[in-house]
């Protein structure tokens, strides 16, 4: 059996006309994923050279929801895009007598290999992360997904630069034009080109509808394959349980205290009842997780500014009862700490916080990644 060549593929659907139309939307989805991903990583920095805004409170909910939604939509788009250009995989290299052509071809195909590998990697690890499934053992999801996003978007730009004349030409011509087709791509497929492109967009739409309910409440009943129903104590799901964080004992101990530390000195030490005795405020704020799910909650508790007596223009370090983990202690930038909506919440939906939601108290601030809304808070530290 001989290895296939591009000429072995005879369907006229495998064409630049289809590839460019699907690729355009794939590029738009990748671009959205990239930009919203940058927003998310910036939001998670311990301090922000340019302050991250606290309003609108649902800003991060939208950007991170878009990140996951466009990522899911990219899966059918990428599969059909790759299907439409598969014959090129079997293209022979130019001969050694054309060294310049050979080098250029190797570079171009190398950039495609990088693009395909990083794209598949990003989509596969991204959807695995939404389900909190980590089948890899050594690399860090967060660091690697971030680094390879730059690789994927860079390789995508190189690919667009190389193909730009063809892309421009096929996008401005009729979809059935044959100018750029391979000579053997003449056999009618099961669908017309237009129908294949529409089917691909429909497939992307179906994948989004089936999963987006984790972040779009009115889609919950439609999103039968979403990672969450949206149910949970107080109508808010849980990312990390008290058991997983190993705080059950410390969080329910009568010895629990909230310490407010200013300039290295313990300024206040408050019991649960002390916190309850302070003026209580209620806010409606979302929890918006990096995994793309989100839920609105009605939180009540003490305003953070009220606890930070002599509050200065400084960041606040918020420390949890957790003994380990990268989010045991987080930095709350000054603009978040001073926002009147930022609470140390004691209640959710009119009930005391459940242990899994961060009892005795948790941080809740507007427009902030869920992973930084520290639970089981025991210490607030103003560095000033």
């Amino acid at each position, binding site marked *: 059996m001989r290895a296939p060549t591009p000429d072995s593929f005879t369907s006229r659907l495998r064409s630049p006309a289809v590839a460019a139309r699907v690729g355009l939307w794939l590029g738009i989805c990748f671009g959205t994923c990239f930009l919203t991903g940058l927003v998310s990583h910036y939001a998670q920095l311990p301090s922000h050279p340019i302050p991250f805004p606290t309003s609108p409170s649902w800003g991060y909910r939208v950007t991170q929801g878009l990140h996951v939604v466009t990522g899911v939509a990219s899966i059918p788009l990428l599969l059909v895009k790759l*299907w439409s250009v598969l014959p090129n995989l079997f293209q022979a290299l130019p001969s050694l007598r054309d060294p310049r052509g050979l080098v250029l071809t190797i570079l171009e195909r190398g950039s495609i290999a990088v693009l395909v590998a990083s794209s598949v990697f990003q989509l596969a690890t991204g959807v695995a992360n939404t*389900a909190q499934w980590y089948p890899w053992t*050594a690399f860090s999801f967060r660091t690697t997904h971030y680094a390879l996003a730059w690789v*994927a978007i860079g390789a995508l730009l190189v690919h667009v630069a*190389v193909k730009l004349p063809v892309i421009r030409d096929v996008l401005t011509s009729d979809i059935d034009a044959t100018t750029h087709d391979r000579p053997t791509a003449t056999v009618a497929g099961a669908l017309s080109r237009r129908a294949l492109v529409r089917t*691909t967009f429909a497939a992307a739409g179906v994948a989004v509808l089936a999963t987006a309910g984790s972040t779009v409440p009115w889609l919950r009943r439609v999103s039968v*394959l979403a990672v969450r129903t949206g*149910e949970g104590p107080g109508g808010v799901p*849980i990312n990390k349980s008290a058991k997983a964080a190993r705080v059950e004992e410390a969080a329910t101990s009568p010895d629990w205290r909230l310490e407010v530390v200013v300039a290295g000195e313990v300024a206040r030490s408050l019991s649960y009842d002390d916190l309850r005795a302070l003026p209580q405020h209620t806010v409606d704020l979302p929890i918006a997780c990096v995994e793309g799910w989100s839920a609105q909650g009605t939180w009540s508790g003490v305003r953070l500014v009220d606890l930070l007596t002599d509050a200065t223009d400084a960041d606040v370090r918020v420390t949890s009862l957790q003994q380990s983990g990268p989010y045991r202690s987080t930095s709350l930038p000054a603009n978040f700490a001073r926002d009147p909506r930022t609470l140390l919440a004691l209640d959710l939906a009119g009930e005391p916080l459940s242990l899994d939601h961060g009892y005795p108290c948790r941080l809740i601030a507007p427009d902030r990644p869920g992973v930084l809304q520290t639970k089981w808070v025991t210490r607030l530290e103003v560095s000033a």
Partner: protein
Amino acid sequence: MRTRAALGALGGVLALYGAWLVLSRQDPGQWLEIALWLGAGVLAHDAVISGIVIGLGLLGTRVLPDPWRAPAAVALVVWGGLSIASIPVLTGLGVRPDNPTLLDRPYVATWWTISAIVVLTVVVAGLVRSRREHADDPRTEG
């Protein structure tokens, strides 16, 4: 040409920055695993998924009567895309006994239901299209 050169150069710089991030922030053991995953992703597509789709295409052209091909192709694209996007929830490997709010739907049963609906839709569409083609055929009377 200048636009293309600028775009290509920008892309090269961004990709190299990403590669530098991998090399500078992780250790060689992690590089190796990342490389394995990158390679496995390409193989999963270029060898496994493409192979299956080519096989299904050949089977379709040999087995399916003409009116059935379009519904089958549409079904394959929509169902295939959805199924691949759902692999993480279908494996159920992210389920944690201490967190009942995560992966709290009957995914596998739902997937079978969706698959059955897709097959039924193809059968109905195929039958309807066969009948219509038969009726439109000038050789048949009536």
